[in-house]
C-alpha cells in the first residue's frame, strides 16, 4: 500500500496562495529565533494531479454504503441522501465563525432550536442538548448528568452503573471514564434483561442503569416499564442508548418508557454519513429532573429571535468547544423535514420488515439463538456451521461476494455472533442476494472450508494479521526504512 510519503517530493511553484501584499521585515525579525522551527516536517511537496490520484486510488480500496449492502449491526448504515451534502456545503451555513454574535447567525440558531424541539418530540422528553458529537460522547455527557444529579442531592455514594450483558461496549467504557463502577446484569433465556438479577443489584449505591431498546439482539424489552419503574423506585436513573432508534420511530418514545437520558446517533437514525468513523453527532434528550444540568450554552428563543444562554447555574458546563456538530445537525434536520411524521414511521416499518424478512430466510441455515420476531436487526450464530470454520471466516468470505460483513462477535452473549441490520433503504433484490450468498457460504463452509478460511480472495488485500499490528505497533511512516 503506497502512502503519500512514498512519493518523491519535488520543486513546485507556489500558486495556491497569493504572494504577500504587505510589507514585511522577515520572520526572524518578527518572532524570536528560539521560537522558530529549524527542521522541516517531512510532508512531501507534490503536484496536484499526484495528490488527487493517490487519494482517488485509496478511496477505491474502501467500501461505503454507495458500493453495496452494508448490514453492519447497530450501526444503521442507511443511504445518505445527496441533498444533505449540498445543504451542508451552503456557504451561508458552512462559512460561519462560531464566535459570531447571535444576531449574525439567526438562521443557524433557528434551525438548531427547531431541531432540538423535534428531537425532544421524538424522544418524548423535555430537554435537549445538541452538544455531544458522537453516541459515546452522548453517553459520557449522560453519565456527567447522573453524577451532577446525585451530587446535588447529596447522594454521592451512588457510584455504580448497572448494565445488561448485551450492552454496547461504549456503555461500560463511558460509565468508567465518567468515574462510575460497572456491574453487569445477566440476560434471561429470552435475551431480555433478567428482572430478578436486576432487583438484587438495586440498592443505595446504584446511580442508574444503561439500557438499549430494543436491545442489541434486536429484541424489544417487553418489561421495559417494569425495569424503569424498579430503577426509579430504588432512587436510580435510566440511561437509554439510542443506537437502535431506527426500529421504533413513529411508534414509541423513550420518554414514555421511563428514560431519563436518551442519546440520538444522527449518523445512524437520521441519515447523516458515518464519514469512515465520524464526524457524527450524539445529541441527548433528558427528563425534567435533569434539564437544569444540561450543558451550556443553550439556544433560547424569544419570539422570532434566538440567543445563546451561557448562564446555567446548575449546568455540568460544556462537553464540546462550541455547539456540537452543527453541519451534521443540519443534515439530520433536512432529513427530518423531508420525512415528517409519516416518513419516520415508514422508515421504522421497512427497517423492521427487512430485518424480519432476512431473519426468516436465514434461520434455517444459520443458528438463530433467540427465535422471535425481531426489530431492526437480529443476531445469528456462526457456531456449529462447519468443523473449523468461524464467524470471522464467514465475514471475510462475504467480502468476496461484494458485501460488507455484518458486525461480528457482538453481542458477547451469543457465541460466534453475526449481527445483521439491513436498514430500510435496501430493496428486496439486495436482501435476497444477501440471503442467497449467506446460504451459499454455509454450503461452502461444509464442502470447501478452505475457501472461507483463506478469504478474502477478491479484496485489495488478503486477510490482515491484526495480532501483529497489536504486538509490534508501527503507527507512523518509518522514514528511515528503505521505501517498499
Amino acid at each position, binding site marked *: 500500500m503506497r502512502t503519500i510519503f512514498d512519493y518523491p517530493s519535488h520543486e513546485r511553484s507556489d500558486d495556491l496562495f497569493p504572494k504577500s501584499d504587505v510589507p514585511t521585515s522577515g520572520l526572524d525579525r518578527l518572532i524570536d529565533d528560539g521560537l522558530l522551527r529549524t527542521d522541516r516536517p517531512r510532508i512531501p511537496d507534490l503536484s496536484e494531479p499526484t495528490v488527487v490520484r493517490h487519494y482517488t486510488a485509496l478511496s477505491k480500496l474502501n467500501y461505503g454504503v454507495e458500493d453495496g449492502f452494508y448490514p453492519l449491526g447497530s450501526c444503521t448504515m442507511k443511504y445518505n441522501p445527496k441533498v444533505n451534502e449540498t445543504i451542508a456545503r451552503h456557504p451561508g451555513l458552512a462559512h460561519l465563525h462560531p464566535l459570531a454574535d447571535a444576531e449574525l447567525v439567526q438562521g443557524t440558531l433557528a434551525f438548531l432550536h427547531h431541531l432540538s424541539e423535534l428531537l425532544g418530540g421524538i424522544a418524548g422528553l423535555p430537554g435537549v442538548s445538541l452538544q455531544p458529537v458522537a453516541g459515546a460522547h452522548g453517553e459520557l455527557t449522560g453519565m456527567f448528568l447522573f453524577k451532577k444529579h446525585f451530587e446535588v442531592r447529596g447522594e454521592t455514594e451512588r457510584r455504580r452503573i448497572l448494565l445488561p450483558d448485551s450492552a454496547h461496549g461504549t456503555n461500560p467504557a463511558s460509565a468508567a471514564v465518567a468515574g462510575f463502577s460497572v456491574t453487569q446484569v445477566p440476560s434471561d433465556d429470552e435475551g431480555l434483561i433478567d428482572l430478578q438479577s436486576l432487583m438484587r443489584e438495586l440498592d443505595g449505591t446504584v446511580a442508574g442503569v444503561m439500557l438499549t431498546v430494543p436491545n442489541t439482539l434486536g429484541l424489544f424489552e417487553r418489561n421495559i416499564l417494569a425495569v424503569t419503574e424498579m430503577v426509579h423506585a430504588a432512587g436510580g436513573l435510566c440511561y437509554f442508548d439510542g443506537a437502535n432508534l431506527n426500529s421504533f420511530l413513529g411508534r414509541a418514545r423513550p420518554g414514555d418508557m421511563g428514560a431519563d437520558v436518551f442519546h440520538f446517533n444522527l449518523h445512524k437514525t437520521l441519515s447523516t454519513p458515518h464519514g469512515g468513523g465520524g464526524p457524527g453527532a450524539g445529541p441527548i434528550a433528558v427528563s425534567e429532573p435533569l434539564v437544569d444540568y444540561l450543558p451550556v450554552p443553550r439556544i433560547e428563543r424569544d419570539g422570532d429571535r434566538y440567543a445563546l444562554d451561557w448562564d446555567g447555574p446548575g449546568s455540568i458546563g460544556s462537553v464540546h468547544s462550541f455547539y456540537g456538530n452543527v453541519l451534521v445537525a443540519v443534515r439530520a434536520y433536512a432529513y427530518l423535514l423531508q420525512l415528517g411524521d409519516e416518513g419516520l414511521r415508514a422508515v421504522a416499518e421497512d427497517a423492521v420488515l427487512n430485518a424480519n424478512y432476512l431473519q426468516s430466510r436465514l434461520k434455517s441455515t444459520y443458528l438463530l439463538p433467540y427465535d422471535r420476531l425481531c426489530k431492526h436487526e437480529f443476531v445469528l450464530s456462526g457456531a456449529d456451521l462447519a468443523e473449523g470454520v468461524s464467524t470471522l471466516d464467514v465475514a471475510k468470505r462475504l467480502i468476496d461476494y461484494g458485501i460488507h460483513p455484518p458486525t461480528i462477535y457482538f453481542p458477547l452473549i451469543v457465541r460466534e455472533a453475526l449481527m445483521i441490520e439491513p436498514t430500510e433503504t*435496501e430493496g428486496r433484490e439486495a436482501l435476497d442476494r444477501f440471503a442467497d450468498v449467506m446460504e451459499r457460504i454455509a454450503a461452502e463452509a461444509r464442502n470447501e472450508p478452505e475457501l472461507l478460511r483463506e478469504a478474502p480472495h477478491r479484496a485489495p488485500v488478503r486477510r490482515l494479521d491484526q495480532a501483529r499490528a497489536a504486538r509490534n505497533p508501527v503507527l507512523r511512516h518509518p522514514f528511515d526504512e528503505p521505501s517498499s
Partner: protein
Amino acid sequence: MRYLSHSDADRREMLASIGVSSIDELFADIPAAVADRFRPLGLSGRSEQEVVSTLAGLAARNRAAEAVCFAGGGVYDHYAPSLVDHILLRSEFFTAYTPYQPEVSQGTLTTMFEFQTMVCELTGMDVANASLYDGATAVAEAALMADRLMRRGRIAVAGSLFPNVRRVLDTYCWASGLGVVELPHDPSGVCDLSGVPEDVSAVILQSPNAFGVIEPLDGVKERIGDALLVVSAHPISLGVLAAPGGFGADIVVGEGQPLGLPMAYGGPLLGLFASKGEYLRQIPGRVSGRTVDADGNVGYTMAAQTREQHIRRERATSNICTNSALCALAATVYLATVGATGLRRVAELCVEKAHYLADRIAALDGFELPFSGAFFNEFVVRVPGDANALHRRLLGAGFLVDSPDVLRVHGVEDALRIAVTEKRSREELDGFVDHLGGGG
C-alpha cells in the same frame, strides 16, 4: 418516499414470507402502555426542493457568512484548496464507517496512518491517534491521560487557555474528581510557571495562547519537575514555530480545523492528539497500524485496541468510537496538497499579515498592544473608549471580531482580540484600520 426501495407488493410478499399478516404484528412487542402514549411531531413531510429552499432561506439570515473575518479563538478563516472537498465527497470515504473490516477499509486505514504520521511530524511527537472530537476534548482527554499515568489527582493549567476549551476541561475534571490549579500570566502575556505546585500530574499550556502570545517552551520541562507537559498547539503555527516535541512535551494536542476544514459554526471540528511513544497504551481514540496480509503484503488495520471499549469494556481507558475521521481525512489531504513548503508559506502569510495589522493599529492614537510576547496570527489590542461600542461599530461595517467578553474572562479589559489569516488582503487590513481609527 424515495429513500425507500419497496413496492407495496414487495411488502405484502415479504410479510407473507415472514408469516405475519400485517406490519403492525411486527411491532406487537412494544407494550401497549408505551404505544398508547405515543404522540407524533405534527410535522408533514416536504419535497427535496422545498427543504433546499427552506435551508437557503435560513442561510440567508446568517449575516456572519458575509463578514470579513477577524475572529479567532481556535477556529480560523483559512483557505482550503478545492481538491480537499472533492476528495471528501468520494462516497467510498464518507459513506463508510469505522474500519472494523480492514480488508475493505484500506482507504480509510491508510489515510489514518498518513494522518498520524503528519501529526507526529508537525508536533515532533512519536505517536498520534486517528483524531478526537475537537481541540477542547483533546485537552480534556490529555488531562485524564496524564493523571492515569501520574495519579496525583490534580493538574495545573495556564489561565490563558481559550475559555471554551477550559470549560470543557473543567467539566471532564469535575466528573473525574481531578483538581485544577490555575496558573497566571506574566505582563508579557506568557504563562507564569513560578507557582506550579510539586504534586500535579501535568502542566497544560496553550501556544499561541488566548492572547495570541507564543509560549516559550524552552526549559519549561525543567521548571515543572516531573509533571507531564501538555501543550495545545495551533497546527498551522507549527509550519514556522518549533515543534513542542523538541522541548520534551509529553502530550501535544490541538484543534485541527485550520487544516482545510470550514468554520462550520464550530462543528464538526478535529481533535489532534499525539504523545511520547512510551505512553501508547494510555492514548485515547482509534489508531491505525501497519501490518501484513496472508501473502506478506503491507496493509493497515486498527492497532493497540486493547485500550478500547470492545475489548476491555468497563476497564477501557477510552470510550471513543465515532470520532472525527472525515475531518482527519480533510486535514491529511490539505497537508498533502500544500506540502511542507505550502504549510510554511501559509504560516508566514499569517505572521506577516498579523504583524502588519498590529503595527498599523499600534500606530493609531490611543491604541496599544498590551502584551509584549511574540505572537503568530492573533493579538490583543487595548482600545480607547468603550470596547463593546467599537466591537458593534466594526460589525456594522462588516468586520467580524470576537466580543471583548472573550478577554474579560482573563481579566483583560478594554481590549479586542484580532485574528488574521492568509485570506485577509491588504485592502481588508487597511479598511479595518481605517474603521478603527477614523470611526468609520
